[in-house]
């Protein structure tokens, strides 16, 4: 947990949560979807209030999930061409060539202060009259806003040495932040191709695309050619948007060399190398967020525990990307890339070991209670059971990754030890069952504990091995015995 010290609330030493609308964001995760959308609409009316902005940041995961038609604002229209590469609020996945959210406010200030004020006012009124969800109307606003904003940005950031005092003052505010400057120039590039990006988004929907089919590839090719007619240097940015709309961005590399880049044909090898380098860097960045102990550093540096199943899902995505990238990189025959990819694989391996294998005894075995000394069965804990089942499933899913990560032996050992441990604990419960059998409630509790242990064994060791325990349980309870 990190402390926030923006001075706005005067509680710099308190954890971040303390100064938001108290408890609201937690409740916003639980309420029904229609209520959630209603609250979001209300909050949007006062969204410039700092506490409301904090609340929006906190509830972003649900906003992403529910995607309510937000009230359109000119600022949001400005962000449309690069919204796919905006850094997500949480998790290990980072979009290729990402733009950080902290860039949005300085960007907006630069555009409003250096851009065409009359046009901005006119477009702002137009947006206010637009109904939420009317994408065409917003794109019509964008058609006029984006080129103007790109020009203003390039003027302010690219020409920082000019005598315009307003621009200098603004630039001073960001002085020394080279990363911010780079990202603002990237934004200018996205804005310049705004309309092509928007139509490509329609062709590459819904996001994320699981696979690139022929119509997708055709759409990318046409968009590349359109952008190449504008400027060959902008093709790279268009491809970043295409990659970010895919479940596995590295898949784009596999079709890239088959595309006809039109007027950017000469730059094609450079763009390919640029994009592949970025894919590898991106994999490194994503793996750097895994530290092996089951934690990932979130965007704000916050430590977030990764559940075993989530860890496996992350590992599966990363390994798929590494495999695709390796196959493509063979064309470049660059040993350096191979080493970098191997390093990424190693950090994935240690993350999987740390979150799924090493924690298996605590995560799975402890859900089966030990028999109590007083002969009464331990109460059933269904939350612990659910967590243990998730862990057991993660362990089984590891089988698919064990080859790629060199985890065959450790996984085999973990599975064998879980099977043995579960069997021992189940046998202990079985031995104590007759003591509970006299009282119907106790008997039911004891049987639930046995059945839950049986389920864990089934998940870990498969039905054939579990069936022996099932037969023993049924013999002890006599439930289906012939009368």
């Amino acid at each position: 947990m990190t402390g926030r010290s923006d001075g706005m609330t005067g509680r710099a030493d308190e954890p971040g949560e303390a100064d938001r609308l108290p408890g609201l964001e937690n409740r916003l995760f639980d309420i029904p979807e229609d209520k959630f959308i209603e609250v979001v609409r209300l909050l949007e009316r006062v969204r410039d209030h700092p506490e409301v902005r904090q609340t929006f940041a906190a509830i972003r995961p649900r906003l992403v999930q529910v995607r309510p038609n937000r009230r359109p604002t000119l600022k949001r229209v400005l962000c449309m061409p690069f919204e796919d590469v905006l850094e997500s609020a949480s998790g290990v996945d980072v979009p290729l060539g990402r733009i950080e959210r902290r860039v949005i406010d300085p960007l907006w200030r630069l555009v409003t202060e250096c851009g065409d004020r009359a046009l901005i006012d006119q477009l702002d009124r137009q947006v206010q009259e637009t109904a939420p969800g009317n994408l065409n109307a917003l794109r019509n606003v964008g058609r006029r806003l984006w080129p103007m904003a790109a020009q203003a940005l390039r003027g302010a950031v690219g020409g920082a040495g000019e005598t315009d005092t307003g621009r200098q003052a603004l630039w001073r505010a960001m002085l020394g932040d080279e990363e911010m400057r780079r990202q603002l120039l990237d934004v200018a590039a996205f804005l310049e191709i705004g309309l092509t990006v928007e139509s490509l988004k329609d062709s590459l929907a819904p996001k994320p695309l699981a696979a690139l089919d022929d119509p997708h590839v055709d759409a990318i090719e046409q968009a590349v050619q359109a952008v190449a007619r504008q400027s060959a240097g902008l093709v790279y940015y268009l491809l970043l948007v295409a990659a970010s709309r895919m479940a596995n961005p590295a898949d784009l590399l596999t079709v890239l060399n088959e595309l006809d880049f039109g007027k950017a044909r000469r730059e094609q090898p450079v763009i390919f190398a640029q994009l592949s380098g970025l894919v590898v860097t991106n994999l490194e960045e994503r793996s750097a967020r895994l530290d092996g102990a089951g934690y990932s550093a979130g965007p704000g540096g916050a430590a977030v525990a990764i559940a075993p199943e989530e860890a496996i899902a992350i590992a599966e995505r990363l390994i798929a990307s590494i495999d695709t990238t390796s196959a493509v990189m063979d064309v470049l025959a660059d040993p350096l890339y191979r080493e970098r990819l191997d390093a990424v694989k190693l950090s994935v391996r240690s993350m999987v070991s740390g979150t799924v294998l090493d924690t298996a005894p605590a995560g799975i075995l402890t859900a089966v209670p030990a028999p109590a000394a007083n002969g009464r069965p331990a109460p059933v804990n269904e939350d612990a059971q659910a967590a243990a089942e998730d862990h057991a499933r993660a362990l089984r899913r590891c089988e698919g990754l064990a080859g790629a990560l060199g985890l065959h032996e450790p996984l085999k050992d973990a599975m064998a030890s879980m099977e043995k441990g579960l069997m021992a604990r189940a046998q202990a419960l079985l031995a104590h069952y007759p003591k509970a059998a006299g009282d119907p409630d106790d008997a039911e509790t004891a049987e639930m504990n046995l059945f839950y242990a049986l389920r864990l064994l089934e998940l870990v060791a498969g039905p054939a091995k579990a069936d022996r325990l099932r037969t023993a349980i049924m013999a002890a309870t006599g439930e289906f015995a012939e009368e």
Partner: protein
Amino acid sequence: MLKGAIEYAPSTFEERGAAVAFTTPLLSQTRVRRGERSKLEVLIPSLSQGMGIYVVAWKSVPDMVSMTMHDRYLHDLIVKEEACSPYEIRRATLKAARRGLAGPKAAQAARRALDEDDEQSTLTHYLLILSILKAVGLESPEMLKAGIDTDEGQRLTRQLMTRAAESLRMDATLLYARLADIAAVTAPVGLAHSPRPGRLTRGLNDLKGFRDGMIDWAREVPSDAAPVAEFCAEVAQHTIAIGEKVLGDFHRRIEAIGPLMRDWDDAFIRVRSQAARMAWLLDGWSHITGAWEVAQAEDRHQQAATVNDLFRILPLLPRRESSRDFVEDSKQVKLAHRRSVRMLEDWRTGQMDIDAIRRIEAVKARAP
């Protein structure tokens, strides 16, 4: 014992069999029925993605398919209880899930469903008493005020019911016995004016939601699965149309409780068979509507796979129940469907697909 693949065109509900909510993917929603010499048998559709259906003696299923622990328990329970009507199969399924063998969430859902059944039964009983009293002009504000669960309320109820029996010219014990019979038949369907619709009425409403969902999905997501979704919507619509007619007729007969009591022998048989028909009509649909709800949180590729999965287990109406031959029509859809079907686990090696099992258990936790 495997009899080999047969052409599947049942003419009655009983011949079609009742769907069993197994968690083994290959057995999910397979149907059980009473076959030759009253022995239970199970109908397993397209074991190898082919056409037709396999008829297997119930007792030999565990030897043929590697089953989950939940399914072995449920299998034994069905053998023990000789269950094969939708009602009996549902009770057995809830009992198995309550034991925790389909996971904690399914266990909680099963406990809730069993409690709801009890509550619905009490509520229906109470509402039927009120309706009998109303039919003979004995409405009593005092009784309503006292409530049926108080001693005073029960004393007043007994008093009024004795008078109602006199007015209907029958013995009070007989009136109570008939009331219990009607309540048992009515509770799953629910009364028209009940504050909480019965389970089967809710099922019919869910089916309408499913039909609309399929139509919208087929329109919004052009894919191989779109014609499959359209077919699912058509089968649902046909079932809804029949269901609404049966439900309307059932409610009309129960409303006329006086004539029902008087003309008991014929009238009760009719009411009971209508309730049974509702149960058969909706049998197998709750898993389908629940699975579609679960799929709402997934991406469109997963949804397409779900549509294909659901097609495989769609409760097609038997020939005698419908003017349209859906079995024949489904063959046209199958051509498109076979290209994009989600592979079931390899039933020969017995390797379990834990993701597929989990999806089925998630549906059980939602629609027990």
